[in-house]
């Protein structure tokens, strides 16, 4: 019988390995046929926003850009929702970061601790908090 894992991600992109770990682990869990919920909490809420490309000249070197690209997880997150993962942000933590009105990645939902997080817990078999 399949199980559901809920991941509370509190770290944002780039600050450490947590977000990459969360996304890759989620994909591996989904590939097994199990379910995944991801609650983007604290700095994790930044990962729900659609990136806004910069049109001007950017002096980032090719080597540095390649290094930084490993931390850009938008495609991977949309890949997770396409595979059936439920991903929601905590809108309060978005509010304090000034991003509550930003567009979401495909499949990511506006959420809250009181309703969304509780709803995730109702179907959870394993709960992990990923952060510092």
């Amino acid at each position, binding site marked *: 019988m399949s199980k559901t894992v809920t991941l*509370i991600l*509190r770290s944002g992109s780039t600050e450490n390995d947590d977000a990459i770990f969360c996304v890759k682990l989620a994909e591996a869990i989904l590939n097994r046929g199990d379910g995944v919920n991801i609650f983007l*909490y*604290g*700095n994790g809420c930044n990962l729900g926003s659609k990136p806004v490309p910069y049109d001007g000249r950017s002096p980032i070197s090719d080597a540095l850009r390649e290094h930084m690209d490993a931390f850009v997880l938008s495609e991977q997150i949309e890949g997770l929702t396409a595979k059936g993962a439920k991903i929601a942000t905590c809108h*309060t*933590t978005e509010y304090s970061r000034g991003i509550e009105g930003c567009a979401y990645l495909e499949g990511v939902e506006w959420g809250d*601790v*009181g309703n969304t*997080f*509780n709803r995730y*817990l*109702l*179907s*959870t*078999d*394993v*709960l992990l*908090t990923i*952060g*510092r």
Partner: protein
Amino acid sequence: MLHSMNVVVRKAPGEEAAILGLRAAWAVLSSGGLDTQLVYMSDGVFNLLGVPGYVGGLLERFIEEGGGVNVLRDCIEERGFSEKDFIAGVKVVDKDDIADMVQDADATATF
């Protein structure tokens, strides 16, 4: 499906993790779905000294609504505090009690 949960807070009030843990515990308790225990250890013990504003108010509401608030004795003593320094309703526990709480609950979330 989960029926019970521990929320362990290890960070002092100045770190966002402390309020994120408290908010999560409050949300779960107030939804009525899960038996919820807060466990304060390491620098998390500083949250129990009567923090003013929203944070302190939410912790008091958690206690009033029947949520369990536990603090590890060793962490209090290492920091030179005692039970009388804390807000009302906090239960001082030992390491064995916390290990039992982890085994008794369906999930333990750490902040």
